[in-house]
C-alpha cells in the first residue's frame, strides 16, 4: 500500500478536527474524498503534507513503508507527496521559472542528483506547459501574482506535472473554475495518471469526478470516513445530498 492512514487524530490549537480516520491508497488508484464544509477535508490534506500547526495527537500515516508523522514537510514533498492547493499563495518578485527550478533542484539534491541542466529544464517546462495550456508569459511572472483563479489552479497542475509526484492530493481544485478550465485541469491530471502513482481528490461536487473518474469514493463527516464506495457513491451523493448519510451515521 502506498498510503495507509491508521486511526488518525488531528487537532488545531487543541481542537480535534480529525477523529480517528482510516484510509488506504494503492498505486494506480484515484480516491475521492467528499463531504460537506468543515468536516476536515483540508485538515486531512494538511496532515498528510506535514503542515505546522496541525497536531497529530494519535495514529499513524504510513507512506512508502514509513511512518511519516515526524517527517518535515519538505522531506515529504521530496519523497513524492504533492498538494495542489485550494488557495495557491502569491510570492512577489519570484518568477515561476526560478521557483520551479529551485523546487526541482531541491528534489534532485534530496535524491543525490546534480542540479538540472538549463537546457533540460527549459525543455521540460515547455513540454509540461502544454499539458495544461499554460501560456509562455505565465512562467515569467511572479509565482501566482496577479493570476486569475483558473490560472492559479492550472499552475498547480503544471507544478504537479513538473515534480512528478507519487501521491498527489488535489484540494478542491475544482472550486472557482469554469467548465473549460475544469476540463483543462482534468485532462492534465488524467494524462499524469500511471500505474505507479495515486491521486486523492478532495471535492464537494460530483462534476470534477465525471472528468477525473475515481476508483473509490469516501465520505468524510465529523472527522471520520463514514462511508466508502465506488464511483456510484458520488452519483448517489449528487442526487440525494449528504443528509441521508449523516442520518445513517448517527443512527
Amino acid at each position, binding site marked *: 500500500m502506498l498510503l495507509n492512514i491508521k486511526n488518525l487524530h488531528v487537532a488545531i490549537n487543541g481542537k480535534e478536527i480529525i477523529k480517528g480516520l482510516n484510509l488506504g491508497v494503492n498505486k494506480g488508484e484515484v480516491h475521492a474524498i467528499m463531504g460537506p464544509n468543515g468536516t476536515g477535508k483540508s485538515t486531512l490534506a494538511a496532515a498528510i503534507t*506535514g503542515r*505546522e500547526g496541525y497536531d497529530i495527537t494519535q495514529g499513524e500515516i504510513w507512506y512508502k513503508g514509513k511512518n511519516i508523522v515526524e517527517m518535515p514537510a519538505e522531506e515529504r*514533498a521530496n519523497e513524492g507527496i504533492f498538494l495542489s492547493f485550494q488557495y495557491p499563495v502569491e510570492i512577489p518578485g519570484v518568477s515561476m521559472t*526560478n521557483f520551479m*527550478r529551485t*523546487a526541482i533542484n*531541491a528534489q534532485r539534491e534530496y535524491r543525490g542528483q546534480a542540479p538540472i541542466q538549463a537546457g533540460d529544464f527549459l525543455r521540460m517546462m515547455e513540454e509540461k506547459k502544454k499539458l495544461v495550456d499554460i501560456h509562455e508569459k505565465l512562467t515569467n511572472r511572479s509565482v501566482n501574482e496577479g493570476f486569475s483563479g483558473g490560472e492559479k489552479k492550472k499552475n498547480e497542475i503544471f507544478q504537479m506535472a513538473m515534480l512528478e509526484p507519487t501521491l498527489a492530493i488535489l484540494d478542491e481544485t475544482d472550486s472557482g473554475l469554469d467548465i473549460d478550465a475544469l476540463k483543462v485541469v482534468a485532462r492534465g491530471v488524467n494524462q499524469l495518471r500511471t500505474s505507479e502513482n495515486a491521486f486523492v481528490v478532495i471535492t464537494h461536487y460530483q462534476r470534477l469526478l465525471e472528468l477525473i473518474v475515481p476508483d473509490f469514493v469516501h465520505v468524510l463527516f465529523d472527522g471520520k470516513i463514514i462511508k466508502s464506495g465506488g464511483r456510484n457513491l458520488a452519483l448517489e451523493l449528487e442526487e440525494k445530498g449528504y443528509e441521508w448519510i449523516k442520518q445513517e451515521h448517527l443512527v
Partner: protein
Amino acid sequence: MDNNPNNNILEEVTTGEYKYGFYTDIETEMAVPGLTEDTIRFISAKKEEPDWMLEFRLKAFRHWLTLSEPEWAHIQYPPVSYQDIIYYAAPKKKKELSSLDEVDPELLETFNKLGISLDEQKRLSGVAVDAVIDSVSVKTTFQDTLAKHGIIFCSFSEAVRNHPELVRKHMGSVVPYTDNFFAALNSAVFSDGSFCYIPKGVRCPLELSTYFRINAANTGQFERTLIVAEESSYVSYMEGCTAPMRDENQLHAAIVEIVAMDHAEVKYSTVQNWYPGDKEGKGGVYNFVTKRGLCKGRSSKIAWTQVETGSSITWKYPSCVLLGDNSVGEFYSVAVTNNFQQADTGTKMIHIGKNTRSTIISKGISAGKSNNAYRGLVKILPGATNARNFSQCDSLLLGDRCGAHTFPYIEARNESSIIEHEATTSKISEDQLFYCNQRGIDTEKAIGLIVNGYAREVLNKLPMEFAVEAQKLLSITLEGSVG
C-alpha cells in the same frame, strides 16, 4: 539561462558563516594609535603629499575637534575611543609597483580568496578594479586600457600626485569637511580610495570597481572616493568591501563624492559586506559613511544602488543634490539586518534646479534582534519649479524580536512640486513558507527565495556581476534567522 543571475543562485548558497572573516598575515606598517596633529602629519608624510593636502587635513582636524558625534540616528553603541584607533596601516612594500609580478603574493592570494582577481588576464572582461587594503591601494587594473579613452582610474594618493589640479578643484566640493563629524574625521585622516575621471563625451567601456578590505587589527579605515563625470560622459562604478572577524569593533568612516556635469550619468553601486559581528552582537564594523552626488550640470543623472548586509552599525545616506535643471537623482536600497545589527540608512534628495526628478526605492529587511531604520529627506527649494519625487519604503520583518522604522522628512518650498510617498510593512507569511516547503524547498532556502523576490526591484538595478553576489549575500545574511 545559466547566465541569468536570477536563477540557480540560491541553491548554491550552503554555508551561513561569514565567508570573508579570515586574516592575512602580511608585514604591515602602522602609525601609533591615537589622533593628534602629529598623526596627520605622519600620514601626509607617508603619502608624500603636497602642502595643500596637509593644510586641508589639518583644517579638517581642527574643525573636527569642535564637533561631537551625532546622536540623532536610531542606533546605540558604546562611545568610540578615538585615541585608541590606529589611523594608518599599510602592507609593507619594497618599491613602486609597475607590474602585477611585484605585488606581494600574500596580497594577491588575499584578493583571490575574496574572489577578486587582480590578474587582468584572468579577470572577467568588462571590469577594472582598484584594490584597497587597510590604508592603501595595492593595485589598479586596466589602467592602460582606460587611459586610451582619456579615463583616469587610480588610487586617491596617485591622483593627488599626478592630477593635483583635478583633485583640488573637486575634493570637498560635494562633501565639505565641515559637513558632519565623520566627514571631518575622514577629511583629516583619510588614507586612500579611488579617483575616477571621465572626460567629456566618453562612455566608460568598463565597469569600474573598488574593493576595500580591512585587514590589520585595531585600525580604522578612512577611504575617500572622488568621481568626476564631465559633460555627456557615462560611468558605472561598483564598490565592495569585507573585513576579518574580530571581537572588537572596527571603525570605518568613508567619503564618496560624485560630480556630474551637463548630460553626464553616474551609476554607483555598493555591496556592503563588512563583518557584521557574531550572533551575540560581539565585534563588527561601525560603518559611518557620507556619500553624496552633485548633479551640477543640466540633465545630469546620479543613481545610487546599495545592498547593505554587513557592519554591526550602518549610518549612511547616499544623497543627490539636484542643482542642474532637469537633473535626476535615484536611490535604490536593500538593507538587511540580522542578529544584533543596527542600520540607519536612507537618502537625501535636494531639489534645487527646475524640473528635477528623484526616485527612492528602499527595501528594509530585519531579522533576529536587529533594528533597521529608513531615514530620508526630500527637500524642494523655492527655485525647483516642477520638481517631482517618488518614494517607496518597504519593510519586511522576519520574526518578532526585530524592529523596522521609517523616518521620512519632506520639506517642500515650491508649490508646483509633486511628492509621493508610499510605505508598507510586511512579514513573510506561514502560507508562503508552507507553499515552498510543500514543493520540497526547505525553510531557509524559502526565506532566501522570498527575500530575493521582495528585493528584486532593487537587485535588478545592479550590474550583472554584482547582482549574483548580492543575491547570495542576502540569503547568507538571513540564514539561521528563523527556526
